[in-house]
């Protein structure tokens, strides 16, 4: 029996009366890049948070590389190899950018993997380099622009050297040019390899995004959510043609 | 504008610094006595007033004869702030000794602060008369380690063991009066003691002694010493049908309790220790509800322990407008113990003075003071209690006046002589109590 890389079964989460995530189940492979789309309030972000353990599901389970991860603490999950970014960026505002990344470098997983790296700063620098903001390493995080904050989020996540990377709207608030750059970075990351002293496992990814045209270029599979349930699952080409997706996105009138 | 303010600020700071560092006391032609206490509270004010009166009296006579030279008394006031911050109290003590270079120290109130203060004074070998703290431990230290602690003397009040004994006598006296005049078969007593260390040993003692006196204990309540509402306790006490409430209060709860009990007309007499009720301000503080409260006290208007009492109390009232509290015994300490001792020894040498004072018997306005030895014959520098020595008085609030009511035909032991101080009056029973029981 081959166990899948990530397997989600019957995941459910209620907020008061609102059912944000309703009995979701899917699985993905180690080499996939998965796009997660859907209208606002469809439960995309909630799903990511359930996987990372920030929220506790009311029912269902999540298996990552054969291990159950529901009920584990966030840091445990991160150290098993799932990293995430936040939709509304959450940098440590009063710390220099490099220190932001160093926190990730100090996680047990990163420490174990980078034993041969003598200096944490060097590794953190490489993560920043990868994200393209190394020239501002000593600035306070509060001075960064939106786009650079997104990059910082990615750098922070990458520094834990994850197997699975959850990106929550990596293109949100970016200009088209910046989006291009970010898309290239993500692609490059997925290929894996070394970036200086930083090692990329070539992580599998789940990307939540609204900018479909860029998303389509990166992902090889898309899951569409609406009202907390999966309404479509397939390759980008299939999804574009799927009538239920069009209905959900554009409303019934246009369908 | 801003710069100007800043400059003033800096100037002020520099000024403060300068003043404080250069105000070091000068030459030695006077006897310096440090008065240390919580100067913004009644206790400290009493200590300072008593000392002021003593200094004025002695200086008016030209001072104290030390050898062949007359030396005047100079008082130095130190606010110990000890209720809020005992650390501050020790600093004040240290400052008195090293900066102001005092020769003697009187004062201290909160035992937690007095103990470290005692340590500092003993280390500097300065005679320290404690006026305010009643805890036994302060004097037990003298017995245990005489050479270090011999410079400590108890000034006032006598120690808490004796305080308990006196208040039991009061309880018995009032119990007998109630029994007789209200025709009660058995007197029931509710014990209400504030939660404080000094009150702790009094409760088992009271529970043991009261049945022996032919009375019954119906319950024990321990409100916080700063409780601001005791209606709950009062309701419970009324339910227990107690005739006497045996109070053990030193802090503000004494006022709250008396006021609320009076306002609710709880049919029971309050007897015991209520330090707040010893003060003239009690009547106002309880909004006249503290009527008929009975408490132990050191002085009372028109009651004379001996011939020294009346002049002292009258002068004090004239000078400061209130009856002296027990912390005002700084007067007795300076005038009747320290000054005669210095004159007789003829020097300010602490060791010589200690040797003299511990064997001296002196008369003061609150009675005759003699210093005790413990069972093993060690000096404790604690004061002797009993007929002929310090007894304190019992006082009762009667319609706005604090009236002395005890000792009235009191016999300490069956063989002892009967004692009645001049000026005592009979005890009054609250009318609502008479109304309830006399049917």
């Amino acid at each position, binding site marked *: 029996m081959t166990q899948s890389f990530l397997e989600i079964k019957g995941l459910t989460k209620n907020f008061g009366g609102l059912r944000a995530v309703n009995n979701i189940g899917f699985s993905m492979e180690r080499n996939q890049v998965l796009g997660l789309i859907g209208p606002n309030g469809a439960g995309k972000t909630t799903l990511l948070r359930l996987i990372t353990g920030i929220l506790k599901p009311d029912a269902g389970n999540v298996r990552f590389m054969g291990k159950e991860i529901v009920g584990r603490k966030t840091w445990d999950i991160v150290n098993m190899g799932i990293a995430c970014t936040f939709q509304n960026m959450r940098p440590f505002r009063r710390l220099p950018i490099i220190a932001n990344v160093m926190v990730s470098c100090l996680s047990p997983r990163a420490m174990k993997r980078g034993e041969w790296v003598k200096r944490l700063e060097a590794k953190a620098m490489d993560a920043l380099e990868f994200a393209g903001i190394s020239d501002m390493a000593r600035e306070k995080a509060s001075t960064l622009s939106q786009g650079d904050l997104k990059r910082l989020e990615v750098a922070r996540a990458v520094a834990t050297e994850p197997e699975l990377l959850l990106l929550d709207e990596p293109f949100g608030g970016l200009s088209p040019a910046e989006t291009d750059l970010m898309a290239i970075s993500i692609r490059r990351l997925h290929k894996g390899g070394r970036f200086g002293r930083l090692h990329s496992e070539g992580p599998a990814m789940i990307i939540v995004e609204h900018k479909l045209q860029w998303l389509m270029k990166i992902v090889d599979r898309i899951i569409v959510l609406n009202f907390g349930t999966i309404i479509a699952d397939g390759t980008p080409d299939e999804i574009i043609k799927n009538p239920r997706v069009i209905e959900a996105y554009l409303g019934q009138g246009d369908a | 504008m801003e710069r100007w303010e800043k400059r003033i600020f800096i100037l002020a700071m520099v000024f403060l610094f300068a003043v404080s560092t250069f105000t070091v006391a000068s030459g030695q032609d006077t006897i310096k006595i440090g008065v240390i206490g919580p100067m913004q509270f009644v206790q400290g004010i009493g200590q300072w007033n008593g000392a002021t009166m003593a200094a004025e009296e002695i200086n008016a006579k030209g001072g104290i004869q030390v050898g062949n030279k007359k030396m005047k008394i100079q008082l130095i006031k130190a606010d110990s702030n000890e209720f809020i911050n005992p650390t501050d109290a020790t600093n004040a003590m240290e400052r008195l000794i090293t900066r102001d270079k005092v020769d003697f120290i009187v004062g201290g109130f909160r035992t937690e602060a007095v103990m470290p203060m005692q340590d500092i004074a003993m280390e500097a070998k300065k005679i320290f008369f404690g006026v305010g703290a009643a805890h036994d431990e302060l004097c037990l230290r003298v017995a245990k380690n005489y050479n270090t602690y011999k410079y400590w003397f108890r000034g006032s009040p006598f120690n808490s063991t004796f305080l308990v004994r006196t208040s039991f006598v009061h309880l018995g006296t009032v119990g007998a009066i109630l029994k007789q005049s209200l025709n009660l078969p058995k007197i029931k007593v509710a014990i209400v003691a504030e939660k404080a260390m000094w009150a702790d040993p009094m409760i088992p003692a009271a529970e043991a002694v009261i049945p022996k006196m032919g009375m019954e204990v119906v319950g024990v309540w321990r409100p916080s010493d700063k409780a601001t509402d005791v209606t709950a306790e009062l309701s419970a006490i009324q339910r227990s049908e107690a005739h006497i409430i045996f109070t053990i209060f030193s802090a503000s709860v004494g006022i709250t309790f008396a006021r609320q009990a009076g306002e609710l*007309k709880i049919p029971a007499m309050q007897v015991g220790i209520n330090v707040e009720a010893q003060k003239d301000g009690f009547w106002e503080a309880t909004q006249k509800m503290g009527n008929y409260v009975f408490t132990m006290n050191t002085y009372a208007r028109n009651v004379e322990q001996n011939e020294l009492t009346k002049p002292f109390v009258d002068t004090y009232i004239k000078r400061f407008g209130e009856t002296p509290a027990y912390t005002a015994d700084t007067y007795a300490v300076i005038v009747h113990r320290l000054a005669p001792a210095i004159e007789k020894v003829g020097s300010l040498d602490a060791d010589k003075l200690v040797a003299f004072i511990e064997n001296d018997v002196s008369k003061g306005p609150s009675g005759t003071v003699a210093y005790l030895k413990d069972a093993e014959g060690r000096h404790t520098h604690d004061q002797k209690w009993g007929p002929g020595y310090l007894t304190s008085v019992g006082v009762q609030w009667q319609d706005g006046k604090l009236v002395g009511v005890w000792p009235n035909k009191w016999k300490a032991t069956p063989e002892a002589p009967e004692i009645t101080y001049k000026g005592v009056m009979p005890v009054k029973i609250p009318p609502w109590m008479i109304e309830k029981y006399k049917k």
Partner: protein
Amino acid sequence: MDLVLNIIISGLISGSVFALLAIGFSLIFGVARIVNIAHTAFYMVAAYCIYFVTHKMGSHPIWGMVAAIVLVTLLGIICYKLFINPIREHEGAVLIATIALAMAFQEIMVLKFTGTFLSVPSLVKGYFAILGVKVFYQQLLTFCVVLLVMAGLWILLMKTKLGLAIRSTAQDREVANLMGINEARVAMLTMGISVGLAALTGAVVVPLTVLEPHMWLHPLIMMMAVVVLGGLGSLKGSFLGAYILGFAEALVVFLAPMGAFLKGSVALSIMILVLLIRPEGLFGVSFEEER
């Protein structure tokens, strides 16, 4: 039976006092995120104000109450303008500014009135008995004032423009600012209301107790326990929390008379126990996700 009644009455009364204090504290915290340590110090100042008017000027207690509420509210607003508003952005600084204010008030009172225990006359003297339990009229008054204040506050918050402004500011300061609400003015007015409530509490409660310059510390702690228990910034929570702690205290006094002094500790332990189960207090906003 009358034990139960006793407990109920005592609990209601001490709960009312806590509720009055806690609501004011909660209000200013909700609107301006100010942890006003000096809140009960204002209560103390009000009590001394009544003392001054009745004893030094010899007026009727009612004038004392009025003067206390008006003057202390003004004092609160002035202190806010002078010492708190300029450093609003620095949370820590605001905190110790209020501690320093409380200390300053305490010292001023010590200077003016010394540390002597004082008292003020009650507005209505005497007591009445319900089923053998004696209750002061003043306690009844306290209870009524709590109900009135609650009703008044509810009307103010729900039915008036100022109330709307206060509520929206409490929800989100920045957004309220953008919506054209003068946040600074709302904060100042709320401070006025909050301090006014503290003064009112002083005016109705103090006639039953003793005045001294350190009388603000104990209610401060109980008030904070109430506010935390009920959930910060939630008026409903403060109201309920106050009665829970009030009853806890009454139970301790009646059922464990030897341990009456422990009533404060017991109340605080209850608060901690509740927080262990619900970290955001009874009616606080849940943090489950993030804040």
